[in-house]
């Protein structure tokens, strides 16, 4: 191989690897103003505290990752007694499982929506769920919004009851701020 071609190859490799290494990761953290609301016939409420990391590149779905955590103790139903009850062993068992966790495994783009598939862990039970979401904003601040349903019986949260609905509708709005 000619000396000049080795040098050209060297420069090409160096340029390529350096430019790839310097690509910034599109990493975000959950910002203020988030809301995780659950709604049923009874009860309804929200979780006030959540956090986590989000990696989002609208042009590269393989690079998108969501790693979110919700504090069970931040549950708010508008009724102090219900909030305390929700944290007992029968319901969320907040002492043993203080967080609800979601970790994405696949993100797909469907038109203007995104289908975020991942593992939702509540009360030690992990189930694969697909959450539809829309994204608003660009650059350093994005907001993910969507609605999905969760059957609390799948996660052994509480007992079958005529008073409390099995299926809870979850509305979320999660702002993500670039790191």
């Amino acid at each position: 191989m000619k000396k000049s071609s080795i040098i050209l190859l060297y420069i090409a490799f160096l340029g390529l690897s350096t430019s790839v290494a310097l690509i910034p990761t599109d990493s975000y953290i959950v910002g203020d103003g988030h809301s995780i609301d659950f709604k049923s016939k009874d009860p309804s409420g929200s979780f006030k505290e959540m956090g986590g990391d989000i990696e989002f590149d609208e042009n590269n779905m393989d690079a998108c990752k969501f790693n979110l955590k919700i504090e069970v103790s931040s549950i708010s139903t508008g009724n102090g007694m219900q909030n305390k009850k929700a944290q007992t062993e029968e319901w969320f068992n907040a002492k043993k499982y203080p967080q609800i966790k979601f970790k994405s495994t696949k993100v797909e783009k469907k038109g203007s929506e995104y289908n975020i598939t991942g593992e939702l862990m509540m009360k030690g039970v992990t189930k694969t769920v697909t959450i539809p979401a829309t994204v608003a904003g660009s650059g350093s601040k994005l907001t993910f919004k969507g609605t999905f349903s969760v059957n609390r019986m799948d996660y052994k949260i509480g007992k079958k009851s005529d008073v409390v609905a099995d299926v809870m509708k979850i509305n979320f709005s999660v702002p993500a701020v670039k790191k």
Partner: protein
Amino acid sequence: MFKNHFILSLVVAIISSCISGFYTFNYYKYMFDFSMVLPIWKIIAAYFSVSLIAAGLRFLFDLMFPKFSELFFNILLGFLTIISIMHPILMNGDFEMAEMYPGFAIPIYFIFTIIWLALAPTFIKKPLK
């Protein structure tokens, strides 16, 4: 002559990437997942970049200090490796389990240097004249 340096850099980058990839993959799987902070593809790209820069530098050292190029280069490489570990230590990242990050990342900085020092004498046998 530069061909050997170039091949050395590619071999070191490939081996370092394999070892680091294995370490990182298992750390993320069994200990804690820092892939949001340091994805594996970024480690591999950085190894190739650093390895190619090291090859160019070593070639320059061979031209400038024919007798002592290996000694000077290895001292510089060792020094830069030790300095570089300050990066994860001082990073002060705003992410979960940030206190565990230096313990995870520091071995990655040493893998490249160890592989380079192990393989360089095989590829660059004699100082240039």
